[in-house]
């Protein structure tokens, strides 16, 4: 069990809380499950023939019982390796697919009933898939959005101006267009998705394939927009920078289950038992028995990186400083990516999720 943190206190597991608290959540997910039947293709010509009549299917459990509550105004990140079930969860919540079991409500609506009233109040942005009416010029596709979302003209103008302002002011003027094109497309996608002022926004890899500057722009925009509008956002991303910049609450999903729900810093505290000690020795005098201080991660004379257990770090540090001439020293948490990679691989054996305990 992770130490209870703010988010966990806000959203205790199902069954432990009075109904009153639950009804405040914008997104409520209870034991949500989704399995796909995947056609198992056999190798060889004969198998291809027999496959025509007698197909072998394999059940893939993409989401195996997720419980989650998200309050109004939260910005939550879904982390997890490819195929962990992040995107499937977003698809379930936006009503693109039906679950195999469990329940979910977003703003009181059951997403997969695809109620028009619900569809006017949320937006889904999938970074790698084009959802624009892209054969239309931008202005036209926005007007189309105005119509299909029944946005009145005053609100449309206000919303449009605001978005243009927010997204374009930060544009780098000297940047060649071809380098910006993906970023510009993403901005267009965001504009289209936010025109109707959705109260809930699902973002699937919003910065995938973008260069650093475009990524940064999108992050800044999302941060600002979310703060001003206090909308609820669920985001999946592979870029830890996105998550670090945007989300206070992180939900790690692996093998279709939630294995962590809390703050980003909490991940390092919970899953990492060591720190990284970097030492730079003076005068090129490097001791040969470095391993007595900790595991040597990297050795580049006169610098060394050591992996040291968290609980002995102060002792090790004072010992090193006393015994050697040190020019520079730093103690860091292991890189978040590394910790998370470790978490992902640890979770390879499906364990009961903390939230289900």
């Amino acid at each position: 069990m992770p130490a209870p943190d703010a988010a966990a206190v806000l959203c205790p597991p199902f069954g432990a809380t009075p109904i009153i608290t639950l009804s405040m959540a914008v997104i409520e997910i209870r034991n949500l499950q989704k399995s796909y039947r995947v056609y198992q293709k056999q190798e060889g010509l004969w198998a291809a023939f027999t496959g025509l009549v007698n197909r072998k299917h394999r059940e893939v459990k993409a989401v195996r019982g997720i419980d989650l509550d998200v309050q109004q105004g939260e910005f939550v990140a879904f982390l997890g390796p490819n195929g962990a079930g992040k995107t499937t969860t977003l698809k379930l919540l936006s009503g693109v697919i039906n679950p195999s079991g469990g329940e979910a409500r977003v703003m009181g609506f059951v997403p997969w009933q695809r109620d028009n009233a619900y569809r006017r109040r949320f937006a889904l942005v999938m970074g790698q898939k084009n959802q624009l009416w892209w054969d239309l010029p931008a202005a036209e596709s926005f007007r189309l959005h105005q119509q299909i979302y029944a946005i009145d003209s005053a609100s449309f103008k206000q919303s449009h101006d605001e978005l243009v302002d927010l997204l374009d002011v930060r544009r780098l003027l000297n940047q060649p267009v071809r380098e910006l094109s993906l970023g510009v497309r993403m901005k267009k996608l965001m504009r289209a998705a936010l025109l109707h002022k959705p109260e809930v926004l699902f973002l699937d890899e919003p910065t995938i394939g973008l260069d650093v500057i475009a990524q940064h722009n999108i992050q800044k925009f999302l941060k600002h927009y979310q703060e001003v509008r206090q909308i609820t956002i669920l985001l999946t991303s592979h870029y830890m920078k996105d998550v670090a910049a945007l989300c206070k609450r992180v939900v790690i999903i692996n093998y279709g289950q939630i294995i962590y729900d809390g703050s980003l810093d909490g991940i390092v505290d919970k899953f990492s038992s060591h720190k990284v000690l970097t030492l730079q020795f003076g005068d090129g005098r490097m001791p040969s028995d470095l391993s007595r201080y900790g595991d040597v991660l990297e050795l580049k004379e006169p610098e060394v990186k050591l992996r040291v257990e968290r609980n002995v770090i102060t002792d090790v540090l004072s010992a090193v400083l006393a015994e050697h001439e040190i020019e520079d020293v730093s103690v860091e948490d292991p890189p978040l990516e590394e910790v998370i990679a470790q978490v992902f691989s640890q979770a390879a054996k499906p364990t009961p999720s903390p939230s289900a305990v």
Partner: protein
Amino acid sequence: MLARAQTWWTILRISLEERLVYRGDFWIGTMMRFLPVVTQVFLWGAVFAGMGAAANGSGQIGGFNYSDMVAYYLLAMVGRAFSSMPGLPSGIALQIRNGEIKKFLVQPIDLIGFLFLTRVAHKLVYYGVALVPFAIAFYLFRGYFSGWPPVDVLLAFSISLVLAFLLGFFMEALMGMLGFWTLEVSSLLWIFMLFNFFLSGQMFPLSILPPPWDTVALAIPLQFLAYFPAAVFLQKIQGPAMWQGLAIQAAWVMFFVIACRVAFHRGVRRYSAFGG
């Protein structure tokens, strides 16, 4: 209701504007479509000459003499201009395959309605521009027509063209919906197009088929895409049979509207259960 009408109007207007951009190649394209008519004139000229009946117009095949045959081709082309839906089924199947269909699940907009309006816009622009080459062609081939038909026939002809448009749209949209069930839609579409090519009557008047194939061809809805309107105009189908034909055509339209709706509903359910 007003909001919905406004939405439809916006979609229609936007599609119109979009279509108008591609006017350039239109004229040439449409003119080229009349070239085959010239070959038909020669081909049937030779056939009827073989019967020794080309000049005096007495010889008939399936109720059509030489002039009728040439006039039929032009009229069948008019029918096809209304009922053919290039790119519609393959476009739907592609949208299903590449996941673009999600847009219609996530956003409050109906796929069939949207496609219908864009197609109406497409056709309106097409007729607007193609009117000129069609007029020229009809003028050049006016000798093969025996004057204008009576008003009630013209009315029935116009109605059958509108119905041909609706039938073509919903039939081909239904074909596109197959994409929900199979990834390999293109070969199915190819077979459908092949049947469509022969049995809609764009190659020859269906009445010249030997029995029992004429009965078969006239029993299936494809005939309403080209043969029926042309036959009405040429008064090969007259009086009660003409109005009865229109009623059957309208019934087929209703059938395909419903079938298309049901297929979309089921398809989405399947899509959301298996794919996504």
